[in-house]
């Protein structure tokens, strides 16, 4: 549709564009650090994680191969790299969802401004390209901020470990050429995720700059998106179950399952604007019947996209952590089963199990941390963007206390629902993962998932603390000034 326009834009050289005196006037206006802070933090975390993994696996495989025949060096290194790549992929995926979510939230708060640009003649693909470019810049800055300290730490810590004889005294290559990979992947992720997150720009109509009324918040999910989400969901589930079945005969099942897991989860994320409000509606009565609670419950459902964006972050974090908890519990359960049958293995296994679980919790915890950054940012931006609405409630006679209670009730309800949903998903994915990984080795066929209730309780408590903490601080800021000023803010 916009092919002509693209040609138009290409005809004008960037130099010409700059010469008008306000370079990237369109871009600059959207570039506000506060809005993009989360994208940068997430890029920094993801790059730091990837770089740490590359350095760690490089050092580790050098150390291991020092004890082994030269020929095995490569195979050790490749195995460790594949495992790291899986964890890095999960972290990048979570970062991408968080970045796309952040961009979508920022755009939702800028509808009028974007509509104004559209009205005076910017086409939406150009605006989207600008946003994606900003995403690229943020991700590049974040990636550098994340990489530098990790590399410096590596350069300091590795010789220290050699000195203290933790590592054998052989040369290590901390400045691995492979370090470029996580950097480049992070930057590409920032660009693509911003592009995907900016999709909403094309739904902003120029007329929204002229009308006072807000955009219709109950707009249904576009048909193309529904079809795409359905395909992802069904295809992903089939791949996931295929992985489980393949896992019964081959350890490769887990890789097929991973692809299926990522695809099906993406489908769920895309369905979130429909799915989450439906879940919220079912649970709306939980928060009581006071005016604050009733408005809170109605708000959560009234802006499905906004609620969905906040909730997806919680769902991802909870799903990841609970998936790992369920998978490892199931794994332990299977191992105990084996140990009972073959006592000669039981001795060495405990130690390996404990160590593996510790390392893997750290690796999954990192992705959960990225998800938490997204969650905190989303809730905070959401409250700030609602300043006029909150101002209106105050002019109508709500006390600031009631408004804060309303915001907390909204957060609490959304958190409870998302945690519950995440736990269900995590249990399912965790069981699939354990089954696909271990099915072949055990020859036991299918196992029942082991559910670690204690871990689930901790997840719930942490998620509620983070969510309420994240919405309280901005709600205090949002209710601080005069109600009239808040009302006028646009």
């Amino acid at each position, binding site marked *: *549709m*916009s*092919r*002509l*326009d693209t040609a*138009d*834009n290409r*005809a*004008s050289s960037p130099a*010409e*564009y700059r*010469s*008008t*005196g*306000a370079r990237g*006037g*369109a871009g*600059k*206006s959207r570039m*506000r650090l506060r809005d993009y802070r989360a994208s940068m933090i997430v890029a920094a975390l993801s790059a730091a994680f990837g770089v740490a993994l590359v350095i760690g696996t490089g050092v580790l495989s050098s150390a291991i191969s020092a004890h082994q025949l030269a020929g095995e060096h490569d195979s050790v290194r490749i195995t460790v790299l594949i495992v790291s790549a899986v964890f890095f992929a999960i972290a990048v995926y979570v970062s991408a969802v968080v970045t796309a979510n952040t961009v979508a939230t920022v755009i939702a708060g800028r509808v009028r*401004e974007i509509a*104004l*640009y*559209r*009205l*005076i*003649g*910017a*086409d*939406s693909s*150009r605006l989207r390209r600008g946003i994606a470019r900003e995403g690229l810049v943020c991700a590049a800055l974040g990636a550098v901020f994340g990489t530098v300290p990790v590399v410096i730490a590596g350069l300091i810590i590795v010789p220290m470990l050699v000195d203290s004889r933790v590592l054998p005294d052989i040369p290590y290559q901390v400045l691995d050429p492979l370090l470029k990979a996580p950097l480049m992947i992070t930057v590409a992720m920032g660009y693509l995720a911003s592009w995907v997150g900016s999709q909403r720009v094309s739904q902003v*109509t*120029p*007329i929204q*700059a*002229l009308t006072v009324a807000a955009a219709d918040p109950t707009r249904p999910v576009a048909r193309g998106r529904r079809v795409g989400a359905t395909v992802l969901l069904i295809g992903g589930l089939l791949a996931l179950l295929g992985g489980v079945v393949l896992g019964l005969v081959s350890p490769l099942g887990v890789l097929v399952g991973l692809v299926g897991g990522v695809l099906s989860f993406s489908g769920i994320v895309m369905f979130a604007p429909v799915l989450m409000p439906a879940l919220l509606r079912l649970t709306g009565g939980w928060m009581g019947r006071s005016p604050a609670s009733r408005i809170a419950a109605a708000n959560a459902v009234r802006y499905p996209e906004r609620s969905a964006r906040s909730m997806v972050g919680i769902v991802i974090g909870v799903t990841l952590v609970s998936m790992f908890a369920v998978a490892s519990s199931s794994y332990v359960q299977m191992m105990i089963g084996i140990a009972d049958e073959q006592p000669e293995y039981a001795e060495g296994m405990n130690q390996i199990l404990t160590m593996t679980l510790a390392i893997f919790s750290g690796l999954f915890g990192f992705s959960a941390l990225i998800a938490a950054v997204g969650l905190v940012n989303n809730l905070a931006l959401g409250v700030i963007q609602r300043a006029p609405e909150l101002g209106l409630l105050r002019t109508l006679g709500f006390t600031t206390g009631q408004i804060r209670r309303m915001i907390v009730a909204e957060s609490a309800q959304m958190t409870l629902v998302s945690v519950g949903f995440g736990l269900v998903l995590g249990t399912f994915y965790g069981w699939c993962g354990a089954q696909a990984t271990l099915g072949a080795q055990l020859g036991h066929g299918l196992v029942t998932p082991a559910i670690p209730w204690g871990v689930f309780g901790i997840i719930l408590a942490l998620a509620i603390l983070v969510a309420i903490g994240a919405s309280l601080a901005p709600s205090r800021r949002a209710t601080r000034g005069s109600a009239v000023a808040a009302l006028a803010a*646009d």
Partner: protein
Amino acid sequence: MTTSSSSPVLAARLDAVTKSFGVGSGAVVALDSVTLNIERGRFTAIMGPSGSGKSTLMHIAAGLDSPTSGRVWLGDTEIGALDDAALTRVRRDRMGFVFQSFNLVPTLTAWENIVLPFELGGRRIDDSQRAWITDLCHSLGLGDRLNHRPHQLSGGQQQRVAIIRALATRPEIIFADEPTGALDSRTGREVLTLLADACARFGQTIAMVTHDPIAASYANRIVVLADGSLRHDIGQTSAAEVSALMLSLEEAA
């Protein structure tokens, strides 16, 4: 895209335009088969009580909304037939807008706001355009305010920036939506004088939607809508007469 050849006198044209919102028994007809010609080089006021359909009329004339039935032209371009990308270019290159709420981009300076339409089109501002814009800024007393952000300007200054932005590209038509609605009466009169001047001195075509009889009295022509239909179409008229006319409409309703 010149339009002078086939319709030398019409800047915009609506032909039997109907617009209804909603479907079935809840449908509301905002415009009921309205035909309107807006002549080039004139300052036309579109008046009517709230709910008369005047804003819808402007949205449709500007290609911001599509009619349920009927046809719409800008010059000799039928804009009803254009896709979003083409409409975007038409807005950028051939129309200007002035709003009640000024609608300046808050993070850009006054000058950056003014040259935004050029920038969005990827066009370079040539010397004559630069001179034209600078002239406008000076004659409107904004010469030393161009590096200020909108929040550092008064309402009247913000609206003048918006008007310069609309005039800068020398568009075929400027649509103004209650341009004095958010201003005090003295500043409002200055802004109206400015619009009338732009029409008289530069031949700028302006279509202004308003419900304010004083604002309408600055126009060369006043078109009055009520309940989605054209009720009156008169030449320049004093504010008192316009008020009387509007009052008679209210009483008839």
